[in-house]
């Protein structure tokens, strides 16, 4: 029964991981920037939600809308900055966002100290008893919202002109440009959307986890792992990889203890790199 319970928790957490990785994979696939500061954007979204709750008693689920707005603006500005990096863009993008993440972490310390903060909402604390199984309402809602956002993203990418332009740019930049797509504009849109998605993930982060300036490292790693295992451009595969990682994490915590939660991520990442030394090329090639 413990196994079933952990599997269930793992699946719920995994859906949320899928949301964390969705924005990252979008930026990686279209803009070709390996955003090591993805987690910091998520943390910023979490802080925005936290302050909306502290100052205006805004429910975290309602706060998703203003958070989305703020993070879109931040994403747009950041893209203006990143648009100037030189070749090789893959490596330069990785290093510059590494710098951004150090900068952001310390700016957050300066702004709001290193204190651990959380939003406590009573209805999210409840749990449902299903026979011998216990389901946390908070986790259910977070997983449900994640699936909703991922589905919306999927529909956007497959059914709108902007989404198709993004897919075309991800598959072949030059060909997309020749077809009359303004790739620079697509880049800006995809990056902004990716950061906005990180913001939504942040809004869903803070009712369930403590947020602090260094809290972004875990989410960044999760996003990287899922993008490598699932490949960019296939949100379904990213989601499945998320569920697998969620299950693995829950089992590791049950069997080895909570201190092995994050190390498991990094071990999986090393294994993923060893298995797929060329990373995402497979997903991008098609």
């Amino acid at each position, binding site marked *: 029964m413990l196994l079933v319970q952990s599997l269930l928790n793992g699946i719920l957490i995994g859906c949320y991981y899928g949301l964390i990785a969705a924005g990252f994979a979008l930026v990686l696939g279209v803009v*070709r920037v*390996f955003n*090591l500061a993805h987690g910091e954007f998520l943390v910023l979204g979490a802080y925005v939600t936290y302050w909306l709750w502290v100052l205006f008693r805004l429910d975290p689920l309602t706060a998703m809308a203003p958070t989305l707005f703020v993070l879109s603006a931040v994403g747009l500005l950041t893209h203006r*900055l990143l648009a*100037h*990096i*030189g*070749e*090789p*863009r*893959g*490596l*330069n993008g*990785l*290093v*510059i966002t*590494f*710098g*951004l*993440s*150090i*900068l*952001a*972490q*310390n*700016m957050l*310390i*300066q702004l709001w*100290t*290193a204190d651990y903060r959380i939003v406590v909402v009573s209805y999210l604390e409840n749990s449902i008893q299903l026979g011998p199984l216990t389901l946390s309402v908070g986790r259910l809602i977070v997983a449900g919202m994640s699936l909703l956002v991922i589905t919306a993203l999927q529909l956007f990418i497959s059914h709108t002109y902007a989404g198709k332009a993004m897919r075309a740019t991800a598959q072949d930049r030059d060909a997309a440009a020749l077809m009359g797509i303004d790739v620079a504009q697509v880049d800006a849109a995809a990056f902004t959307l990716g950061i906005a998605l990180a913001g939504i993930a942040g809004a869903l982060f803070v009712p369930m986890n403590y947020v602090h300036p260094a809290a972004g*490292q875990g989410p960044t*790693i999760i996003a*990287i792992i899922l993008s490598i295992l699932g490949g960019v451009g296939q949100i379904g595969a990213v989601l499945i990889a998320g569920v697998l990682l969620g299950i693995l994490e829950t089992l590791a915590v049950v069997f080895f203890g909570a*201190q*092995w939660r*994050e*190390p498991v*991520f*990094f*071990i999986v*990442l*090393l294994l993923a*790199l*060893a298995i797929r*030394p*060329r*990373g995402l*090329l497979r997903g*991008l090639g098609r």
Partner: protein
Amino acid sequence: MTAWSAEIAIGLPRVGVRPKLQRYAWVGLLVVLALIPVAVGFSTYYVWLLTVGCLFTSLALAWTILARCGQISLGHAAFFGLGAYTSAIFAQRLGGSPLAGMLLAAIVAASVATLLGAVAFRTRGLYFALATFAANEVIKAVVLNWDRVTGGAWGMVGIPDFPRLVVGGLTIDFQASRTPSYYLVLAFLAFSLLLSHALLNSRVGLAFAAIREGEDVAASLGVDPYRFKLLALLLSAALSGIAGAIYAHLVHFIEANTVFNISLSGLPLIMSLFGGLSRISGPAIGALALYLTDQLVFQPLFPSSHQMFYGAVLVIVLLLMPRGLVGWFARTRTKRS
């Protein structure tokens, strides 16, 4: 063809020969550094500041050895931390000499680097960088969870000092003042500079450059990329390990969250890119300039978040000066002449 396959790192120079005087600029830097304590009247504060500055300079040089093969590491804190813990455990728990501990630190760091290389060199470019980033976190987790040996999250306190040395009639006491520590670190920095110089001006250096310019081309010319990249990683890790060991014995206190910190992985990278990788004095000057600015200006202003300075520098360097400071000076000078 796309950015994904590119392995040429930021601001790395093309193969070429430089005027002799420029190649030996680092010797002048060493002489200046050796004289500074006299100039500041052996002030404890400034000597200590420079001691740590020179230690980070050595770390930057160690990072650069690997970068010269086009391999960007985002996890060099791993080797620094391993060295610090190895020597601390050896000296404190086993009663060994810190000097032997430094050697052991180099061996342990190099061994782990060999293991890491076996996995990480299956990947290229930014995936290699990611693997180093992940490896640092795995090692940190092991150190944090291996309480009985490493002290876990509490770290290690009261790590012994370097022993008193008697050379000729001269007694060198590391406890009496900060000055002997400074010259010890300076000696290590001199060693790092010499090694970097020897590597850069040898067949090995040429092999590194060839791999950096194009791994497949280098392989087709009979340069085995794996062997030389592993050599670079080993040397780089060993030097970083020694730097970590010296740090542990100078500061007497280490904890996993400090010595395996992501900003410590960032430090050598930022310093080297800022100084420019095209010659040996680049990372050295970059490191000293940044560390002193950080400590003298930003640390007093933002005690808990002064590291943001390094993040900002990295972003600005990548946007404005892809070849770093020294490359920048060299370019403006050639333009004028």
